[in-house]
């Protein structure tokens, strides 16, 4: 008790030094004035003592990389997707334009899902344990073929050698498809081909039409578009070859983290059904996503 009284006196002296004008009546309350002041200070300056409020980081991310297009619309894509997805949960889209950085970024990550081309997925599943869940759909189809087209008047026996191919896909992807289409022409012809990267399929076709490239590697659908836009230019083209059917974009989850990412997968699956969601998917050249069938999942394993 003696110790407590001594402590109270010492605090009072300090308080008197700090606040000499404090009335004696308050001093009579012994420790009470100090407590009042301390309480006031804590209340008044609490916002300075506490950390500033931080905007919550989205918990789940869609990691996006697509070697089939060079269109640099990532800023708009991210804003549009994030605005839409944030209404459904703590989700965000993270686009990448470099394959190596993308693959380094997803390594070991379980807080999200991947949105990739089917060609890239087949490659990725050899490096990471992944489970393909959804496939992109356009015009009711989940697959597409790539077509190599050139002007009708440019074909000659040595044509493939030194051909300048416009493509919206990156060089690795384009060369891979060209190998599939022109495999019979031999390595020499393939290695002499120049690939010119353009932002989108329609640019590749116009590059042939206006003489900036000798051939274009595009989707079948973009040729249908060309037919609608400029039938004359479409008629001037001939088909040099066609790839096999390829799936459109694939949505995959880390094999051991599918349940955690289920709500985000469901949000993506429903996106095409909502007008606002569909308009965002159009930016990726898709109308919607649907679950992969058992046979499609098998086909992706090959």
């Amino acid at each position, binding site marked *: 008790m003696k110790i407590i009284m001594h402590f109270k006196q010492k605090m009072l002296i300090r308080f008197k030094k700090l606040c000499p004008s404090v009335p004696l009546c308050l001093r009579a309350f012994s420790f009470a004035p100090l407590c009042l002041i301390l309480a006031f200070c804590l209340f008044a300056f609490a916002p300075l003592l506490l950390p500033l409020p931080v905007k919550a980081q989205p918990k789940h991310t869609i990691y996006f990389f697509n070697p089939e297009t060079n269109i640099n619309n990532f800023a708009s894509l991210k804003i549009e997707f994030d605005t839409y997805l944030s209404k459904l949960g703590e989700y965000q889209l993270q686009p990448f334009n470099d394959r190596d950085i993308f693959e380094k970024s997803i390594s070991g990550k379980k807080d999200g899902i991947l949105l990739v081309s089917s060609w890239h997925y087949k490659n990725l599943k050899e490096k990471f344990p992944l489970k393909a869940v959804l496939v992109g759909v356009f015009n009711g189809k989940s697959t597409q073929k790539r077509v190599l087209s050139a002007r009708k008047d440019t074909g000659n026996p040595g044509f493939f050698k030194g051909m300048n191919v416009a493509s919206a896909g990156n060089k690795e992807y384009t060369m891979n498809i060209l190998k599939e289409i022109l495999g019979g022409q031999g390595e020499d012809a393939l290695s002499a081909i120049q690939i010119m990267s353009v932002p989108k399929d329609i640019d590749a076709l116009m590059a042939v039409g206006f003489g900036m490239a000798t051939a274009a590697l595009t989707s079948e659908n973009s040729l249908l578009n060309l037919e609608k836009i400029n039938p004359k230019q479409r008629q001037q083209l001939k088909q040099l070859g066609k790839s096999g059917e390829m799936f459109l974009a694939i949505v995959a989850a880390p094999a051991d983290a599918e349940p955690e990412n289920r709500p985000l997968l469901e949000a993506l699956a429903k996106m095409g059904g909502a007008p606002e969601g569909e308009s965002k998917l159009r930016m*990726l050249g898709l109308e919607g996503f649907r679950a992969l069938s058992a046979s499609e999942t098998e086909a992706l394993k090959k």
Partner: protein
Amino acid sequence: MAAAVSAEEAGSILILNSNMSTEKYALAQTEFKSRLEKRSNLAEVNLGEKEIDEAGIEKIIREKNPELIYCIGSKAYMMSNKLAKEKKTVFSSAINWRRLPMGRNTYGVSNELPAGMVLMTYRYFFPGLKKIGVLYNQNYNAEWLKNAEKDAKDVGIEIIAESVKNSNRLDSALEELLPKVDVLWLISDPVVLSGPESTLNILQKSDSMKKPVFAYNEIFSSYGALLVIDADIPTMVEQASMMALDLLSNKKIAERVPSPAGSHIILNMKKVEEYGIELNKEAIGSVNKIIK
């Protein structure tokens, strides 16, 4: 006594940039370097630096003695043409290259998209807009208009043109043209777009008559243009770098100055909704930037 000239290093390239503080020029340089850095010995000069003058550039060219000069922008090209006319030269980002002096070893990529390519893109985005109005001056764009009218027919578009003799006649030409068209296409014409006031005037008058505007430069999108189609810089640099490598390998160049092969598209969705225009939803996948 003549100054010492170092031996030309095979495969060496000097990049002459008109001004690195111009965003488009800086992007062109970064893109070019990313494509060629591993394959060539590169040196860089920024003409925008205060410390550098013509004598300094001449000295650098003499000392580096590059096999090829890559010029970004007209200023860089004019300097290169003056100081090293005989060098293999590739240019890009030079506005209206046809007014530039062309040397024996000069090659480049045009900064302007072909009218036909632009018209195809308009048709792709807005299939319902079939009458396109153009204001032009006979002295500057008569030839261009003739070709554009031909290309427009291929895509089912009719171009309705109104000649503007001088900037004082702009208002009357605009009043004559706007009621007849679905959309106004702003082209690069020094008489029609004689200054910021005339440009704003065109955009405001078009807006008051609910006539959308197509344009060729990003700056117009902030003033309410519906669609802006410009050449895509990375694609132009890709073309220029392929050309540079072919020249360094003494390969034959098919076309001395090809058109850009890629476009950069800005779509103003606010205007799409405001005017109630039919937009081909599929085309949204081709947009680089959406304004909302």
